[in-house]
Structure formats: C-alpha cells, structure tokens
C-alpha cells in the first residue's frame, strides 16, 4: 500500500517548498534599498554592459555611457563646449612660445575630491601615467608630447614640451582628464563623486559640494545600464528613469506627444555616420567613382526615413565639430544621370560593390538600404553585408566600402586620422593640399586662421574626399518633464551635462 509512502513524500515536498519560499520572501531588505534616502536624484538610463567602465582613460574610445560616467568625476584642462568650441576648463590660461613647441599652462584654483588642491605636479603625474606603455591606453594623439620634459614650475604652472609645433594645443588637451593620483587611486575634481559602480548594472554618484564650477541642482545621480533600447524606453515611460541616454529615433519621437515627457533637440551633431570608400583600391581610387557615389545618395530621403526628419542634408565634409562659421560650400543634390555618366567615363558602368556595416550608430542601417536602392537606379549593384560588431571590427580598415562613425573636434581629425600618413586613416585618402593644410593648421593658434584653413580642408573633402556624409543629424534626448535645465549640445552629451540642471521631486 503506497498511501503512507506518498503521504511522507508529500509532507517532505511541502516542507521543501515552504523552505524555498521562506528563503525567497523572508529575507528582509536593509532599511535603505537604494532609494537615495530623500536626496534629490536624477536617474539616467543608457545602453551598457559588462564592458562598462568608470575610468578616465581607455584602451579604446569610450562609449557615450562611459563618457557620461567619467565626465562627472574627472575633468580636462580644456573642454569641448555645447556649441562646438573648445574652452579652458581646469586651465586658467594657455601660453605658447614663439614656434608653438612649448606651452605654459596655468591652473585654476580647484579642489579635488580628497579635499586637496589640484597642482601642476598632478598634471605632470597624470600625463606620465597616461603614457606609461604598460597601461596600453589609446594614446595615438600624444605622439607629439615629450612627457619626460614636462615640468611643474610651481603649484599652479606647468610646462608642456612638444616634439613638433602645435598651435591648436587647446584641442589637443581636450578630452584628456587630469587628476590626483594617490596610491594608485585616480582622484577627480568633477561635480560628482562616485559612490558605487557595478558594470552592466549601475553607477551611483553624490554631488561634490566643494566643486569649483557651476554645480548641478540635484544631489544624487544614478546611471543605469541596459542591454536593450526598448527597456530604456519602457523604463522612462514607467517613471523608473528620468532621462534616456540613447533611444532609436522612432522611440524618441513618440515621447514628443506623450504628456509628462519632453524631448531635447540638439541640431548639427558632431557625430557623423558616414560611408567610407578606400581611395587606394579600385574602383574608389578613381575620383569620378567617388563623386558618382556622392551623387547617388538621396540626402533628403535619408534625413526623412533614417532620422524621422531630424537631420539636414550635408555635404561630405567634417561638420558640427567646431565653432567656425559654416563653410560656403554649395549643397550637393542627388543626380543619378550625372552619376551614371561619371561611372561611364570611369569605365565602370554597371558596377557591383559590397558594403560592410554593423550596428554602429542610429540610422546607419537605414542609410545603407536607402543607398543600395538609389544605386540600383544608377545601375550600380550594392551587396549589403550586415555583420555583428566583432566580425566588422576584425577587418576594420580593410573593407573597401564600409560604414564609419566618429565624433572628434574638427581640428583633432584634421591633424590626425584624416591625414594621409596616420594609421587610423580609414579611407587612405592622400590629398597633397589637404596634408599641407594640416601642417599649417598645426602652426597657428589663431582661431580665425584655423577656421580659414578648416574651410578649405572641408572643401577638399567635399570635392575629392573618401567618405559620403549624407546628413547632419539632430540628436534627440527624451526625458521626464520634471528634469529642468538640460541644454542642447553638438557633442551627443546634452543628457549628461548637469551644470544648473535640477529635478522636481
């Protein structure tokens, strides 16, 4: 008879279940489970993962979320401003010698998070730390800095010595935070002090009350990492976060009509999503083919379809990434007939090419598809080769025709990766005049002179350059209407520039 056996088993099972349920539900949470105990808090949601970092320096380029985190803690001597300009930040002044090979930088009166003042020696220590080969940081732009010859003259004055003249030194310093290094700990000077950080999950900061600059109007900042953009949109809708750091355009637009939310529009973004052509490989070694491809794309269509109308046609040159007046370059329009005759002239009618792309930036995939459709009208067959990021990066720089994206100050690009001899020149474009202008750019610190040189460089890119840059994008940042004081910025950083920003509790 099995009833007693079954009874015993039932009792044992019930005890087991009760024990598990008890363990699951009975654990009492601590009194404060992360609510911030009444402090005014802004919660920001962004795409992230195990690779999240809270460091001022990186082996690769930081993601937008990494930047959102580290910019709260560590600050550079000069910093790019929302209008595209570069301004002194921790530096009070920058004085060059006659041939721009030596720069004397005077520091502001700045208190670091440990309560001590930031000194000139700290600046020297920072650059020595950054250029230590053992750290393997991405330091391609530091090749002109003679770090061993750097010198702290007094507490506030530091001298940088360069191996070649560099006039736009303020741009060079931009984006390279300085800090106090105490027992291996990197102590910042920024508006927030990190409290806790778990990659792939969250970073929590508290306001630094001795901050030297304009303070945020709230006390606590939480940056949550999401692996999926839909989850970010849902979290914002459900009131679990206050600002969405990255959303697809369709989602951002949907918040425009939703009560309780606002969408910050930052036009003329410095972030460029482009189609790179290898100018040293056939068929793109022929300038006529490059020009034909630039005439094939329907820029208005890309703006409407890929960016929901939040973009303006642009003209295949660097834009948004400086505060110079807009160059006087006529707007390029789609012209299939001319493209076809150029391809005919170049001897490649009915061309077939493969375009390699990945999930790089919003709009990049739609752009590829739209280009392929327009190309078909011109008799060009474009094979779209979509792949995941590691696959794409494994052949980075080798693809003859591929997506690219960047967001650097124009002076920076013009003196590094756009130059013929630079290892990161992905199009291998080697224009003699462009390279001479790049050298000239290095030899002036005068803003107007720099703009004049950049103007001509942009013109050369427009006429002959190796990338198709169809549109200038407006960045959208959806946020709760309780958040006040966010200001547009060309750098895709409007959602984490918190000076003067507050939240209604």
């Amino acid at each position: 008879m099995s009833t007693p056996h079954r009874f015993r088993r039932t009792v044992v099972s019930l005890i087991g279940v009760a024990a598990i349920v008890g363990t699951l539900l009975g654990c009492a949470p601590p009194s404060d489970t992360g609510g911030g105990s009444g402090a005014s808090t802004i919660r920001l949601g962004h795409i992230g993962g195990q690779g999240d970092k809270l460091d001022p320096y990186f082996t690769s380029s930081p993601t937008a979320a990494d930047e959102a985190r580290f910019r709260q803690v560590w600050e550079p001597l000069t910093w790019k401003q929302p209008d595209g300009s570069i301004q002194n930040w921790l530096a009070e002044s920058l004085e060059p010698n006659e041939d721009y090979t030596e720069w004397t930088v005077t520091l502001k009166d700045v208190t670091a998070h440990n309560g001590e003042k930031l000194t000139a020696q700290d600046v020297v220590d920072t650059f020595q730390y950054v250029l230590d080969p053992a750290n393997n940081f991405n330091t391609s732009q530091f090749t002109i800095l003679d770090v061993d010859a750097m010198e702290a003259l007094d507490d506030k004055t530091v001298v940088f010595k360069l191996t070649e003249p560099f006039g736009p030194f303020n741009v060079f310093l931009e984006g390279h935070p300085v800090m106090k290094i105490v027992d291996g700990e990197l102590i910042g000077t920024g508006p927030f002090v990190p409290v806790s950080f778990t990659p792939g999950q969250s970073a929590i900061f508290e306001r630094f009350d001795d901050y030297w600059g304009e303070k945020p109007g709230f006390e606590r900042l939480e940056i949550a990492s999401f692996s999926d953009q839909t989850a970010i949109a849902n979290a914002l809708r459900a009131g679990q976060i206050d600002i969405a750091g990255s959303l697809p355009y369709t989602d951002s637009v949907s918040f425009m009509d939703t009560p309780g939310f606002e969408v910050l529009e930052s036009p003329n973004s410095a972030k460029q999503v482009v189609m790179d052509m290898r100018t040293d490989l056939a068929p793109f070694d022929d300038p006529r083919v490059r020009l034909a491809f630039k005439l094939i794309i329907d820029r208005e269509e890309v703006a409407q379809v890929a960016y929901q109308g939040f973009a303006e046609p642009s003209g295949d040159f660097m834009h948004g990434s400086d505060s110079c007046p807009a160059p006087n370059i006529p707007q390029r329009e789609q012209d299939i007939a001319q493209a076809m005759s150029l391809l005919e002239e170049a001897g490649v009618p009915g061309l077939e090419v493969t375009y390699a792309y990945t999930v790089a930036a919003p709009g990049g995939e739609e752009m590829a598809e739209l280009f392929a459709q327009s190309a078909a009208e011109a008799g060009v067959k474009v094979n779209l080769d979509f792949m995941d990021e590691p696959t794409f990066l494994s052949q980075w720089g080798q693809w003859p025709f591929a997506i690219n994206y960047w967001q650097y100050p124009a002076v920076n690009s013009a003196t590094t990766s756009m130059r013929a001899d630079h290892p990161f020149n992905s199009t291998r474009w080697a224009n003699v005049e462009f390279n001479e202008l790049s050298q000239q750019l290095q030899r002036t610190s005068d803003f107007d002179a720099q703009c004049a040189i950049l103007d001509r460089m942009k013109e050369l890119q427009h006429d002959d350059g190796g990338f198709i840059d169809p549109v200038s994008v407006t960045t959208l940042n959806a946020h709760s209407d309780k958040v006040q004081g966010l200001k547009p910025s060309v750098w895709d950083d409007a959602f984490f520039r918190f000076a003067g920003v507050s939240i209604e509790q």
Partner: protein
Amino acid sequence: MTVSTEAIAIRRRRRIRVPWWLSRLLQGVLILILISILVFAVTQALPGDVVNMILGKNATPERVALVREELGLDRSLWEQYWSWLTGIFRGDLGNSLATGRPVSEVVGFRLRNTLVLSGLTILLTLPLAVLIGVLAAVKRDRAADKGFLGFSMVVNATPEFVLGTLLVALFSTTVLHWLPAVSLFPPDAFPTWYPLAMVLPVTTLTMYGVMYLARLVRASFIDAMESEYVENARLKGLTERRIIFVHVLPNALAPVIPAASIVAAITIGGTVVVEYLFAYPGIGTVLLEAIGNRDLPIIQVLVMIIASAYFILNFVADLFQKDDWSAGR
C-alpha cells in the same frame, strides 16, 4: 487494492537498469565536457575576436599583439582549452577576456538572481498547471475549457518577447501604471526585496509553462477518467471527489512529470529573453553580451551552468519516476 493492477503491470514491464544513476552521472559529465569542447570550437570559428572588441577602431598591429599576449591568446588552441579545463577542476573559472574581472565575480550574483527568477517561476508553474489542467478536464468541452484551450494555444504560439512587451504595455507603460516596466535593483539586493519588479518577468515565464503543462495535465486527466479502473471505482460507489484526488490525479500526473522537468529546464533557458526584455540583472543578459564580445570564459561557464541545469532537472524527473515504480511495488 485501490491502485489499478493493470497500471502496475504496465510499469513492471519496463526494464530497470541496476546502477542507473551512476551511468547517468558519468554520461552527464561526459556530455558537459563535449559541450565545452563544442563551445570552444564554435567561438573560435566565429569571425572576429575579443581583441577587436577591446581595441575597437583604435587597433594597431602592435597594440593587438600586446593585448593578445596579455590575454594568453597567443598560445595554441589546445593549450588555451587545457588551461581552462584544468582551471575549472581547481575551482578557478578564469577571468573575463573583455573586462579582466574574475568570471565568478561577473556571474555570481547574477546567477543567484536567475535562480530566484526561475525558481519562483517553477514553484508557481507546477501547482497552477495542475489546478488549471484538472479544472479544464472536469469542465471538459464547456465554455471555460474551450476558452482555456484557445488561450493557451495563443500564449504558446506567441514569442516570449512579444508576450512580455504586451504585459509591459498593459500593466506598466500604456494602459495601466501599476507595475515597474524594468527590474532595476542594486547589485547587492536580493530580487525578492523588490517583489513588484519581479511580477512581470515571473508572469511572462510562468504563463508559458502553465499553458503548456496544463494542456498535458488536462489530456492525461481525461484519459485517466475514461479508464477502466475509474469505471470500477464508480461501480464500487466511491465518491467522485475520492476518485479524482486519490485515484485519477496521481496516475494522471505520472506522464506529466518528464514534461514538467523539460518545462523547468526551458524556463532556465527562457530567462535569457525575459531578462533582456525586463533589464533583469541575471545571467541571460551577460550571456548574450559575452557572445557579442567573443568573451569565451564567460560563455563557457554560463553554457555549462545551463547545460547542467537541463541535466539535473532530467535526472530529478527520472528519480521521481523510478521512485514511483518502487513505491508502486
């Protein structure tokens, strides 16, 4: 005898292997090793590697070589696999290639969170499936039963992602604003401290299991109700309640047990999608990301965990069945 002699006879006819649990255990270990070799080989075969992801667009041949050496990727494939395998036996899960942090640290609390999520789901699924299945069988062919059948078909035909999104729209973002849309809680928190944040992920997972299992329970229950021993019991004048609970239910559940263990295993695998959707800090999101990063040590450990869960749950189901046979005897 209240238990049908025929049912026992059918069970007896099955062959029982003597040290079956031992051979099963050895089989399990062997399968895990084979899976680890397979995962290793497949990850190697994928184009691109973790160094590309670490250096991104700023890779120069010198920096690539430096990182490869640091990570030990310059060693032969066999050496890499062997050092991983021996590490496992020493209890060292290795370090994440992408971030350099110990795998145990990355996986630890997330595995706990996933176990809580799937544990709660399984605890809810089994009794609910039995309850709904029995009710549907008792009300066979009536409106409630037909409604259940239709609804369960729709639920099981809907991808988890869609079902979860619908629940979010319904209860969090669009129609009602009762529940959190995503499961944001601090890393050191136990998930059940935030019961509201658990509701939607658990519901999404539970609905699948319940709808599938309840249909099985219903079919199996109807079969049992139509059997001869029930007829006999009725003729002997037993009450309907006694027939259902004492005679039909235990027999109806026997064929459901293996299915239940599979559903439990699928639940653990299914958390991958649900965690992604609800930003739930479990192993699912980490696994997807590790595959995207080609981060082999993390992929290996997580695949091993999921495979072991399948193995253990099947083992437990077998245990229950064997137990049932000996009990019947």
